[in-house]
């Protein structure tokens, strides 16, 4: 027998807020948080806007109650995990708990600061800044701090990373291998990723305009997003109220190019179709699509066309919340799972900010105003990334 995996709580931090409530308010008020970084030290400071979390490492560490010497990705992760996990930590004590965390940069923010010195002088005093360089080291720090140890893993599939951690957590709960899981991911801004994306010429010099005909690229962001998932039995034991279930998930590959999406979004289509099939819903039953929607010419065109084909012209309300948070890379699937959960819990849809002009190659347009008082039953959330990795998740309202 398979046990459904329910989302009972969320934790998130992005440029628009330090927790679920603040992010919800930010989304509702159209908070604009994309601009010049205060903490990221880069040559591109004045030229390339980013969605930076407006807190220093010391402030993040204080918020999470951990050491400020941790890499920033671990600090962001700890803030969001604390919000999702802490209220149930005690009641989940006797249950089998897993931590599924994704990231792409690991401890690069610290490594890139000491690397030159390390390389030139070979000094060992730089080693402490490099020991948490591995992606897995980030997860290990956070899991250790919060005492989650029955199963702890790190997934890194570029921009789809944390959607995949939610997928695996759901599978392990369904298979009865775990009772409880904290799943999502984190990534901080680093010079490495900023310059990497800059060489690909896909960074917008202005604030991004996903799904707009005149879009110029993406804005990088940083943050962390996690959902707390439980089996029905565990939720009962922990006195937790299910908000929605992770009813469908799929991971497919575009097998087209290392960084670009295929023109028709082959991988995108496969992921969406398989996720809906697994959830046992038809495209017409989807209430909202949280788009991958990075704002690059290629990504939005592929995703737009794939959606048009999968939904046969009847495209449900859809928006890219990356217009608020920037593209938080390995965190984005987790952040957007939290936003999808809010959409279901509160019956609201978030607008796709700064949309002005209809895209020429698709016939539908994203939602451009906040909508409230809705019955959101099924949300489809897309995360597509480098390496052709395409993942889609379906969240279904509890007892829908």
């Amino acid at each position, binding site marked *: 027998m398979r046990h459904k995996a329910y989302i009972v709580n969320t934790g998130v931090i992005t440029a628009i807020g330090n927790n679920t409530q603040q992010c919800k308010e930010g989304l509702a008020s159209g908070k604009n948080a994309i601009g010049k970084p205060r903490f990221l030290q*880069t*040559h*591109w400071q004045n030229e390339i806007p980013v969605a930076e979390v407006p807190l220093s490492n010391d402030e993040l560490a204080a918020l999470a109650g951990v050491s400020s010497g941790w890499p920033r990705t671990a600090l962001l992760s700890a803030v969001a995990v604390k919000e999702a996990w802490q209220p149930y930590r005690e009641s989940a004590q006797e249950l089998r708990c897993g931590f599924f965390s994704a990231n*792409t940069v690991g401890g*690069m923010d610290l*490594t*890139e600061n000491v*690397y*030159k010195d*390390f*390389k030139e002088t*070979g000094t*060992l005093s730089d*080693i402490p800044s*490099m*020991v948490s*360089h*591995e*992606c*897995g*080291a980030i*997860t*290990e720090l956070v899991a250790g701090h919060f005492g989650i*140890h029955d199963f*702890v*893993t*790190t*997934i*890194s*599939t*570029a921009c789809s990373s944390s959607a*995949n951690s939610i997928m*695996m957590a759901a*599978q*392990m709960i369904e*298979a009865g291998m775990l009772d409880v899981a904290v799943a999502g991911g984190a990534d901080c801004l680093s*010079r*490495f990723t900023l*310059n*990497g994306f*800059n*060489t*690909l010429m896909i960074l917008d010099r202005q604030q991004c305009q996903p799904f707009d005909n005149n879009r110029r690229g993406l804005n990088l962001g940083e943050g962390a997003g996690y959902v707390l998932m439980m089996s029905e039995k565990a939720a009962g034991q922990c006195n937790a109220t299910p908000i929605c279930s992770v009813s469908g998930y*799929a*991971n*497919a*590959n*575009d*097998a*087209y*190019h*290392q*960084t670009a999406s295929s023109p028709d979004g*082959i*991988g995108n289509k*496969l992921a969406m179709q398989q996720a809906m099939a697994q959830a046992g819903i038809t495209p017409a039953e989807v209430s909202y699509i949280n788009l991958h929607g990075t704002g690059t010419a290629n990504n939005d065109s592929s995703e737009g066309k794939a959606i048009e084909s999968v939904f046969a012209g009847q495209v449900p309300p859809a928006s890219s919340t990356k217009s608020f948070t920037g593209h938080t890379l390995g965190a984005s699937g987790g952040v957007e799972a939290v936003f999808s959960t809010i959409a279901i819990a509160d019956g609201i849809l978030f607008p796709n900010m700064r949309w002005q002009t209809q895209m020429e190659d698709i016939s539908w347009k994203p939602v451009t105003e906040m909508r409230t008082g809705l019955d959101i039953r099924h949300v489809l959330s897309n995360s597509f990334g*480098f*390496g*052709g*990795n395409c993942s889609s998740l379906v969240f279904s309202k509890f007892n829908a």
Partner: protein
Amino acid sequence: MNIYIKGAGVISAAGNNSDPSFLAEAPGYDTHRLNAKEPDYTAYIQPMQLRRMSKAVRMGIGASKIAGQQAGIEKPDALSIGTAMGCLQDTEVFLSKMIDQQEQMLTPTAFIQSTHNTVGGQIALLAGCYGHNLTYVHRGHSFEHAIINAQLYLHAHPHHQMLVGGIDELVDSSVKVLTATGVYREGNSTEGILHTAGKGSIAGEGAGFFIASAQPAPGALRIKGLQIFTTKDAALVSEKMNGFLAQQQLQQDDIDLLISGWNGDSRTKPVYDVLHQQFSASVIAGFKHLSGEYATASSFGLAMAAHIAGTGMVPGFCRLGSAPARPIRNIILFNNYMHYFSMWHICT
């Protein structure tokens, strides 16, 4: 768990298993670092594509092709890969240039190939594989998690063939950092790793890829159990092993072969002393003197299990105990990388 291994491909410091002389001769070296002996890839990869590939990508694709050939499968339905460090070489190239050129005049190639899922992405691209594709980057459990993912995937897709692999590459900086932190040591020799202990082990790298399926096949190795844990307490390990044997319904005497991840590190010597004593009636074979130590070295251990099952012979230069040879049915693979431990029950 029931995963059948229908093909194995390994590229390592001890060579690759498409070579008929793989593991035929005792290794001899005096080095602090075991670099992979890479095969001529032109049988597997177009020269144009090969030129652009880093070692991690080459080794991953090469090992996946060997595994596919063994299994007679050109295009797997899905991929599951473990790599603790990812594509270090390209990461370092981009990082160095970024710093030296003060973030200016950079080109994208190294960045594009630096992401941890590059190997998985490239294999999918070359094979035209649109299926499930995941990359685990969880330190010393990266490969084990890829196997657990295979279990989940194959349960849902019982007729699919999944390519599962472990891969890590060495670069100068990683050797330096891991030597400074005590994972690796300087001044090693073959003998040194297997028969003496010191602080740290010998640096290694490699790729071990497997075609996995939920369906049995003649000659396929069967992974019947896998248990993983982390601990810094040596005393806990024996308790864990006894629990695992009980869970697998195995008596001590049922174990024909122990493939031991002993790596010459004095800090885990107490663990392996107890373990080797416990399995003294079984044939014991070490492998870290062949593969070197790296976070996904258990993929070499699994490939060695496949090789031994195939040839029916345990190479003499791997033998650690003195138990007489016996037919091999039940294998326990025990591995650690730092405080990451795994125990495997493998049947021929």
